[in-house]
């Protein structure tokens, strides 16, 4: 049994069979074949090459059909490399003359080519990835092991990977993927958010561990504690089964809250909105009794396809959400991605600092046709219900004005063509940069609502990359600098009479509920899974008590002190609720 500690990013406990997806992956030992077995092994190699070629052809044809000739050319190049006579000779010679195990021959030979490519001071260096790809395919066919890809899973598994990209996470099959754990990644990364949205337990940032596990072994994934247990013993499995059972009971108890309002003991009504990424999550929010969708992330539209989403793609997604919400508010946030995350090749050049680079509203304002397409779809959806639009990562007033101008322009366009939309659609902005928080008194005059995105606000305020393990511990919602910006933002909004919402992970954690209510927040936007718990918390506190807690916390000078204090307050609250 091996117990690993990582960072919990999506709650829940699951026990299942491991599916290992690693980066460079196969640890191929240096093995030799018996002289007498050389012919059999050569035949096995030839067979694997044939299978690999057929796979590449299938991929080429599929991609050709879906995306066109240009993308298919990549597989054409793979095929050409696979069929390279020089390579085939070398592989054969390695097995026949040196008696290398075919797996070893493949790995050694191809990696040698990859190394040569990598050493080139030329764009050919990128071809090294192709070589690794070919190596992987060949090895998969040689080993014939359970190295399924994510797309072809057909039984329940716990996915263990070096890293998962947001689009890989978004494409996980919820029916079969019971949880995932990765060596890389940090809290608040897009991947973590997607996992939470899909309600798949997830642990990231574990560090190297894939060498210790093979596919098919039982694995326990504890997304509450951030623990992954490899080869668990019977006792541990039994213990976790009990925990799974207990969690189900709590869920049943919380589900009774569904139709009760989120009202504090001193009669203050709090709005609890849902954060969603996929239209399918709307049902989970409604089932748990939400007051609307406070944050509809639209990135998945851009992440799941190599092609830019069309107006119809956008509209269909928005329509299904808006109609399902039956008149309740739906806040749609425009694209909040960096150019580095997009699959579509819209922007050239590599950015040294993508977090500080061309992303979110900056990217939208740079790519006007793409931005207009999204705005058109949002406006069209506004004819169907209470739709509101929100711009992410605004850091200057000019950006806000430009975005509003584009919106006005698109409205004019729609009006000219007699297409229905709500001309009074509320327009809001995210407050997630220190600049926006500090200048909010200026911004607030030009928006109908604001939403404080704590994830980015913390990252930009404390200058911490939340995905970097080395400094992730500096990323702390309790930091006084963060709390001051939060309070200032809430005060400015309250004074101007503009509704404010907090939609970062902070609002989804009961630890902060009292603090946030005490600072004057009356609307929280949280993942569907957190709605019952947050509602329960709101119903168990009084605003008067919360104010005292907020005052105390804001007077403290260190994150650790604040955290300890809030934890104690939460413990007291839980003790009272249970009693």
């Amino acid at each position, binding site marked *: 049994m091996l117990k690993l500690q990582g960072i919990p990013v999506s709650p829940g406990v699951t026990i299942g069979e491991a599916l290992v997806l690693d980066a460079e992956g196969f640890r191929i030992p240096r093995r030799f074949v018996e002289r007498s077995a050389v012919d059999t092994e050569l035949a096995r190699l030839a067979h694997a090459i044939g299978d690999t070629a057929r796979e590449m052809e299938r991929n080429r044809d599929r991609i050709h059909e879906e995306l066109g000739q240009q993308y298919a050319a990549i597989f054409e190049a793979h095929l050409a490399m696979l069929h390279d006579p020089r390579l085939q000779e070398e592989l054969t010679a390695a097995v026949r003359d040196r008696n290398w195990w075919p797996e070893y021959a493949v790995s050694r030979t191809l990696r040698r080519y990859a190394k040569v490519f990598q050493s080139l001071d030329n764009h*050919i260096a990128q071809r090294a990835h192709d070589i690794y790809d070919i190596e992987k395919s060949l090895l998969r066919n040689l080993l014939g092991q359970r190295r399924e890809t994510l797309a072809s899973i057909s039984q329940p598994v716990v996915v263990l990977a070096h890293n998962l990209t947001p689009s890989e996470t978004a494409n996980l099959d919820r029916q079969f993927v019971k949880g995932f754990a990765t060596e890389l990644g940090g809290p608040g990364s897009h991947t973590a958010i997607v996992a939470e949205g899909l309600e798949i337990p997830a642990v990231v940032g574990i560090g190297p561990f894939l060498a210790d596990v093979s596919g098919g072994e039982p694995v326990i994934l504890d997304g509450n504690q951030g623990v992954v247990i490899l080869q668990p013993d019977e006792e541990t499995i039994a213990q976790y089964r009990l925990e799974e059972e207990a969690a189900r009971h709590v869920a049943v108890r919380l589900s009774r809250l569904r139709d009760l309002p989120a009202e504090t003991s001193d009669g203050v009504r709090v709005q609890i909105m849902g954060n969603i990424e996929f239209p399918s999550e709307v049902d989970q929010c409604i089932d748990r009794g939400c007051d609307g969708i406070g944050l509809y992330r639209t990135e998945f539209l851009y992440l799941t396809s190599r092609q830019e989403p069309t107006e119809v793609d956008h509209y269909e997604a928005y329509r299904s959400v808006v109609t399902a919400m039956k008149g309740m508010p739906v806040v749609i946030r425009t694209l909040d991605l960096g150019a580095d995350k997009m699959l579509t090749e819209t922007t050239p050049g590599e950015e040294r600092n993508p977090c500080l680079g061309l992303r979110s509203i900056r990217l939208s304002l740079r790519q006007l046709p793409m931005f207009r397409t999204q705005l058109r779809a949002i406006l069209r959806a506004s004819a169907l219900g209470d739709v509101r639009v929100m711009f992410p990562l605004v850091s200057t007033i000019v950006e806000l004005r430009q975005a509003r101008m584009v919106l006005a322009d698109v409205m004019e366009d729609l009006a000219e063509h007699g297409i229905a939309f709500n001309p009074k659609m509320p327009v809001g902005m995210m407050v997630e940069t220190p600049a926006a928080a500090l200048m909010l008194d200026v911004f607030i005059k030009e928006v109908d609502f604001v939403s404080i995105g704590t994830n980015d606000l913390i990252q930009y305020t404390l200058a911490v990359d939340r995905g970097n393990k080395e400094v992730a511990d500096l990323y702390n919602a309790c930091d006084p600098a963060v709390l001051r910006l939060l309070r200032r933002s809430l005060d400015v909004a309250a004074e101007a009479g503009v509704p404010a919402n907090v939609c970062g992970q902070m609002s989804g954690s009961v630890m902060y509920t009292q603090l946030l209510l005490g600072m004057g927040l009356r609307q929280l936007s949280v993942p569907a899974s957190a709605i019952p718990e947050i509602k329960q918390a709101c119903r168990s506190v009084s605003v008067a008590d919360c104010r005292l807690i907020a005052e105390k916390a804001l007077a403290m000078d260190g994150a650790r002190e604040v955290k300890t204090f809030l934890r104690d307050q939460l413990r007291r609250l839980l003790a009272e609720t249970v009693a």
Partner: protein
Amino acid sequence: MAANSRESLHDAASATPREKTFSREVVVANSQGLHARPADLLAREARRWQSRIELVAESQRADGKSILEVLTLAAESGTRLVVEATGPDAREALEAIGSLFDRNFNEHAGSQNT
């Protein structure tokens, strides 16, 4: 381009008496250099001939029938290469390969990378 490449047929000292080596200088004119697609075309063409085809760039030599080896030359746009053909059909092979370079591998300047 044809204007940039100089035809020079000669006997190479290393060749066996009956196998003549023919060589010709070519210039890589593709904007992206000798990348995957032209390298593939080149290797395919080279494999159509019996003769041994080699590409020589300064100190490096590559088997013209192997896309992997051709790629390791990392020949950028403007690179001068010598194509050597040795074998019974060397003259025709050299002509065919040279013509690929002359035609710029049927690529327009500034076209997409693969």
